């Protein structure tokens, strides 16, 4: 548990979350969401929760990314805000 490492990961988490909410292209938002999940898995492993980190890396960064891409392609890709 190194708190400097965790602080850096927290700051990148905030940046990726805000970019995922503010960007115009929804596909970019989905990719930022995947990066957010992977950084969160890194943070869980740094905190010692290896099982939760493994689950988050498989599900949040793998399966949720595929489902988000499918829903973006089935509907529209552009958004106004």
């Amino acid at each position, binding site marked *: 548990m190194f708190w400097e490492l965790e602080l850096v990961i927290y700051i990148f988490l905030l940046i990726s979350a805000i970019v995922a909410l503010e960007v115009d292209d929804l596909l970019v938002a989905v990719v930022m969401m995947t990066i957010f999940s992977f950084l*969160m898995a890194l943070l869980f492993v740094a905190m010692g929760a290896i099982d*939760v980190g493994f689950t988050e890396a498989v599900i949040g960064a793998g399966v949720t990314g595929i489902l988000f891409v499918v829903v973006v392609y089935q509907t529209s890709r552009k*958004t106004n805000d």
Partner: protein
Amino acid sequence: MLEFFTGHYAYWFTVILLCVGVYGIMFKKNLIKKTIGLAILQISVVMYWVSIANKWDATVTTLDPNIPVDQVANYLNPLPHTLMLTAIVVGVATLGVAFTLLIAIYNRYGTLDEQELLEKIQ
């Protein structure tokens, strides 16, 4: 002072991340953006539970024969990890339900913007 900071900054970041998720739900018009905000809020709650299960100088929750189990401070607390493990998987299943509802709405009304939907429903 530094000790107070290292003991509490994780809570502050968790609160800020939760408020980013609530901001996405409250202010964004597009329904996919609202779903992304919901996912961020969900993960921030998981992060709070994992961060309160932490102990300084403790090892992970797999038993090591060299580390005695009598001293409880040697191992992390396994109960919040278990609860959050199931919460993540149930979260992705319910997100799948949200996605199917989004596709059904788009097939019927042709848009995902909140204002246009309210006009088309009436």
